[in-house]
C-alpha cells in the first residue's frame, strides 16, 4: 500500500502533462463549441449539422480518433510544412478537443433554444442589440447548463487523455500502459488512481462553478474557477522550461524497450539534458516519430527496420552477416532519413529456438542442425503467428524440419509448455529473460536461416551531429550482451520480487559500469 502511494507520488510529470493537455483541449473545445452553439441556436440547419457531426465524432473510439490524427497531420504537412508535429501534443490536443465539443455544444444549444420566449421578447422589447441580448440575458441564463456540459467534457477528456500515451504524448496513460506491458499492476493502479482523482477534483471544482452560476453566487464561481486555474497554472509551472536542453527518449511497448529507454535516459540526464519519455509507441509509429524529431533516440532491431522501413528485396546488396546488415542499414538511414545509427548494443532480440539445457544434453542437441535427424519425433512450439511467418519457413527449409509436429501457444504459456514437456523446442525471443530463468539453451543457427535482429541505437536527424548527445550514448554501443539484457528483462517480467523498468535499468547500468571498470582497469567513473 505504501509502495502504491509512493508510485502514485512519482507521477508528478505525467500528471502535470495530463493536466495541461486536458486544460488546453477543454479550452479549445469551449472556444469551438460556444460560438458554434450561438450560431446553431439561431439556425436550425446549423444546429442539425453541427450536432450530427459532433455526435458522429463521439462514436469513434477515442483510441482510433487519436491514431487517425497521425496520417491527417502527415498529409497536412504538404500545406503547413515539415515542421508540423504529427505525434505528441498537437494530435492529442486536436483529438481530445473534438471529443470535448459535443457535450458543451449540446448543452449550450439546448439551453439557448429552450430559453423562456418571454424573456427573449423582453430583451428585444427593451431595446437590446443582438450582442447585448447574448451578453446580458442569454449567456447568464445559459451559464449553468453550459458549465454542466463543460463538466461532462472535462471528465471525458481526462479519461480519454490517458490514451494520448500511444501517440507519444506524455500523460497518466504512461504508467497504465507501461504497467500493462510489464504486468506491473501497481503501476497500472497508480495511473488509474491519479487519473480518477484528477477527474473527481476537476468535476468538483467545475460543479462549484456551475452551482455558483445557478444560484447566482459569484463567490462560488470565483472560488471554483480560481482553484481550477491555479491547478493548471501549477502544472504549467512544474513543466516550465528551465532552460535545459530537452531530450526525448522513445520506447516501444514491451519490457526490454522500457528498460533500455530508462538506461538511455539516465545517461542523457547525467550529461545535463532534461529527459522526457515517450513510451508505449507502436512499432510503425516510433520510427516516424524519430525521423520527424518527435523523439530524439530509441532502440530498434535490424530485422524490424529491414522489414518495416526498407522493405524486403530492397537491399539485396546487404550481406547476410549481422555486422554487414547493421552497416547497410546505417548507410540506408543516413542517406534516406538522415537518422544516425550509432551502433549495435551487443545483443539480439530475434526469433530463436530454445529447449531445456538438460534435455538438449541428453539428446545431444546444440544447434538446429542436430534437430533434423530426430524431427519426426519432435514437437515444436511457437507463438500464435510464428508458423505463418517467413522465419519459420526459412528454418524449415534450411534444416529439413518438415517432419516435425508444430503446436501454437499463447506467448505466456509457451514456456510452461516446454517445462511440462508439451513441446520439445519452442520459438522464443532471444533476449527474453525466461531463457535464463528456465535454464534454456538457444540452439545455434549455423546456416543463418533466421534473420538478425540486432538491437541498434537510432538518433534523430537533428541530434545526429550533437557531440554531447552522441558522447553520452556511445558507451552503450557493444556494451550489453544478451545475458545482461535477459537478466534485466526477467527482473521486470517475473512475478516475484518484480522490478520496475527504472530499477532494472539502474541495475543494468551498475552492471555495465562494473564490467567497464574491469575491462578498462580503472574506476567506473574514469573517462
Amino acid at each position, binding site marked *: 500500500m505504501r509502495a502504491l502511494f509512493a508510485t502514485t507520488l512519482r507521477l508528478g510529470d505525467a500528471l502535470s502533462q495530463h493536466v495541461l493537455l486536458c486544460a488546453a483541449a477543454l479550452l479549445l473545445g469551449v472556444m469551438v463549441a460556444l460560438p458554434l452553439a450561438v450560431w446553431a441556436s439561431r439556425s436550425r440547419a446549423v444546429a442539425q449539422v453541427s450536432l450530427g457531426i459532433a455526435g458522429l465524432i463521439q462514436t469513434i473510439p477515442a483510441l482510433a480518433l487519436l491514431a487517425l490524427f497521425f496520417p491527417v497531420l502527415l498529409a497536412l504537412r504538404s500545406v503547413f510544412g515539415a515542421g508540423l508535429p504529427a505525434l505528441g501534443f498537437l494530435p492529442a490536443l486536436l483529438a481530445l478537443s473534438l471529443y470535448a465539443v459535443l457535450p458543451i455544444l449540446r448543452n449550450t444549444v439546448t439551453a439557448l433554444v429552450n430559453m423562456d420566449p*418571454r424573456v427573449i421578447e*423582453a*430583451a*428585444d*422589447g*427593451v*431595446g437590446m442589440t443582438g450582442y*447585448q441580448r447574448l451578453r446580458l440575458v442569454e449567456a447568464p441564463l445559459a451559464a449553468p447548463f453550459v458549465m454542466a456540459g463543460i463538466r461532462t467534457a472535462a471528465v471525458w477528456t481526462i479519461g480519454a487523455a490517458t490514451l494520448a500515451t500511444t501517440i507519444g504524448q506524455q500523460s497518466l496513460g504512461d504508467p497504465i500502459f507501461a504497467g500493462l506491458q510489464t504486468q506491473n499492476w501497481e503501476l497500472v493502479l497508480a495511473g488509474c488512481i491519479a487519473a480518477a482523482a484528477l477527474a473527481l477534483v476537476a468535476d468538483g471544482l467545475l460543479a462549484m462553478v456551475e452551482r455558483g452560476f445557478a444560484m447566482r453566487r459569484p463567490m462560488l464561481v470565483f472560488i471554483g474557477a480560481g482553484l481550477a486555474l491555479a491547478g493548471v497554472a501549477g502544472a504549467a509551472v512544474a513543466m516550465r522550461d528551465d532552460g535545459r536542453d530537452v531530450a526525448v527518449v522513445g520506447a516501444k511497448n514491451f519490457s526490454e524497450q522500457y528498460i533500455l529507454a530508462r538506461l538511455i535516459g539516465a545517461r542523457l540526464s547525467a550529461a545535463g539534458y532534461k529527459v522526457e519519455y515517450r513510451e508505449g509507441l507502436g512499432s510503425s509509429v516510433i520510427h516516424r516519430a524519430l525521423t520527424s524529431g518527435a523523439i530524439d533516440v530509441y532502440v530498434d532491431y535490424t530485422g524490424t527496420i529491414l522489414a518495416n522501413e526498407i522493405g524486403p528485396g530492397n537491399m539485396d546488396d546487404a550481406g547476410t552477416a549481422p555486422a554487414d546488415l547493421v552497416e547497410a542499414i546505417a548507410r540506408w538511414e543516413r542517406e534516406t532519413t538522415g537518422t544516425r545509427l550509432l551502433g549495435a548494443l551487443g545483443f539480439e532480440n530475434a526469433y530463436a529456438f530454445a529447449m531445456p539445457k538438460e534435455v538438449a544434453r541428453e539428446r545431444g542437441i546444440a544447434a538446429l542442425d542436430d534437430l533434423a535427424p530426430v524431427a519426426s519425433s519432435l514437437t515444436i512450439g511457437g507463438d500464435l503467428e510464428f508458423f505463418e511467418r517467413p522465419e519459420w519457413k526459412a528454418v524449415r527449409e534450411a534444416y529439413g524440419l518438415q517432419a516435425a509436429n508444430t503446436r501454437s501457444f499463447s506467448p505466456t504459456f509457451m514456456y510452461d509448455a516446454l517445462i511440462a514437456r508439451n513441446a520439445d523446442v519452442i520459438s522464443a525471443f532471444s533476449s527474453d529473460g525466461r531463457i535464463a530463468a528456465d535454464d534454456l539453451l538457444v540452439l545455434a543457427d549455423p546456416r543463418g536461416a533466421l534473420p538478425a535482429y540486432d538491437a541498434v541505437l537510432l538518433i534523430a536527424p537533428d541530434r545526429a551531429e550533437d557531440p554531447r548527445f552522441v558522447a553520452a550514448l556511445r558507451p552503450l554501443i557493444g556494451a550489453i550482451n544478451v545475458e545482461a539484457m535477459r537478466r534485466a528483462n526477467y527482473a521486470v517480467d517475473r512475478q516475484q520480487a518484480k522490478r520496475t523498468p527504472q530499477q532494472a535499468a539502474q541495475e543494468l547500468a551498475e552492471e555495465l559500469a562494473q564490467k567497464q571498470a574491469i575491462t578498462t582497469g580503472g574506476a567506473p567513473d574514469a573517462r
Partner: protein
Amino acid sequence: MNAPFISVENVSHAFAGTPAVKSVGIDIAAGSFVALIGASGSGKSTLLKTINRLIAPDEGRVLIEGVDVAGLAAPVLRRQIGYVFQGIGLFPHMNVAENIAIVPRLAGSSLAAQRIAELLGLVELPPALAGRMPEELSGGQRQRVGVARALAAQPRLLLMDEPFGAVDAVVRDALGQRVLALHRQLGLTTIMVTHDVAEALLLADRVLVMHEGCIVADATAAQLLAGDGGEIAQDLVAVPLRQAQALARLAR
C-alpha cells in the same frame, strides 16, 4: 387637429401566409390613451408590435412624429418606447433595481438609487424592494416593476400588450388605475392591447375594435356604451355591460 403623434399607414402582415393584419390605417394623437380590443387572433398584438418594430410589416409603414420607424435602428427605437407585456418579462437573473435600470444601461448610462426609488414610488412599491430578485415578488409586484422598467428611460410612448393578464381582478383594477394616473401625470401617449373589454372602456379615451385583421370600430367609451360602433363592437361591449347591469340588480 395637430399632426398625429403616430400614423399607421396601410399596414398588412401575414404569418406563414395567414393574414394577421389587413391594410390597417389609423392616426393616434399625442396624449391619447388608446385601447385595442378584439377576439383572440384578431391581429391586435401584431398591430401593436409593428409600432416598436418587434414585427416588421409586410406592407405599409408606421410613422412616429412623421418619422418612418423602419428607418431607425430597432434597438434605439425600442429604448425610446416603454413596453409592458403579458407574463411580465422581468429578467430572472437581475434584481429589481437592475431590471428597472436596464434600458438606460443599454444606452450606456446608469440610474441613481434615488431615481430607482422614485420609479418604484411611481408604481407604489417600497424602495426596499430594489435589491429583491423577481422570484421573490408577488405577481402584482412583478407587474408593477415591469411598468417601472418601461418608464425608466422617460419615454413619451407606452405600449402595453395584455399587461395585466397574469394578475387577479383586484390587483388588475388597482394597476389599471395606477397606469391611467401615470399616463396623465407624465403626459404619455399610451396604446394598450387587452381582451378585457371593461378594462378598455374604463381606462381608454379611444377604443379600437379589431376583427380578422381589420379595424371595425373606432370610438370613445361613451359612444360604444351608447350603441355606436357596429355589430362586432356591440357584441364585445354587450358582455361586460350585461354583467354590470346584473350586478347592479343584485346590489339593489
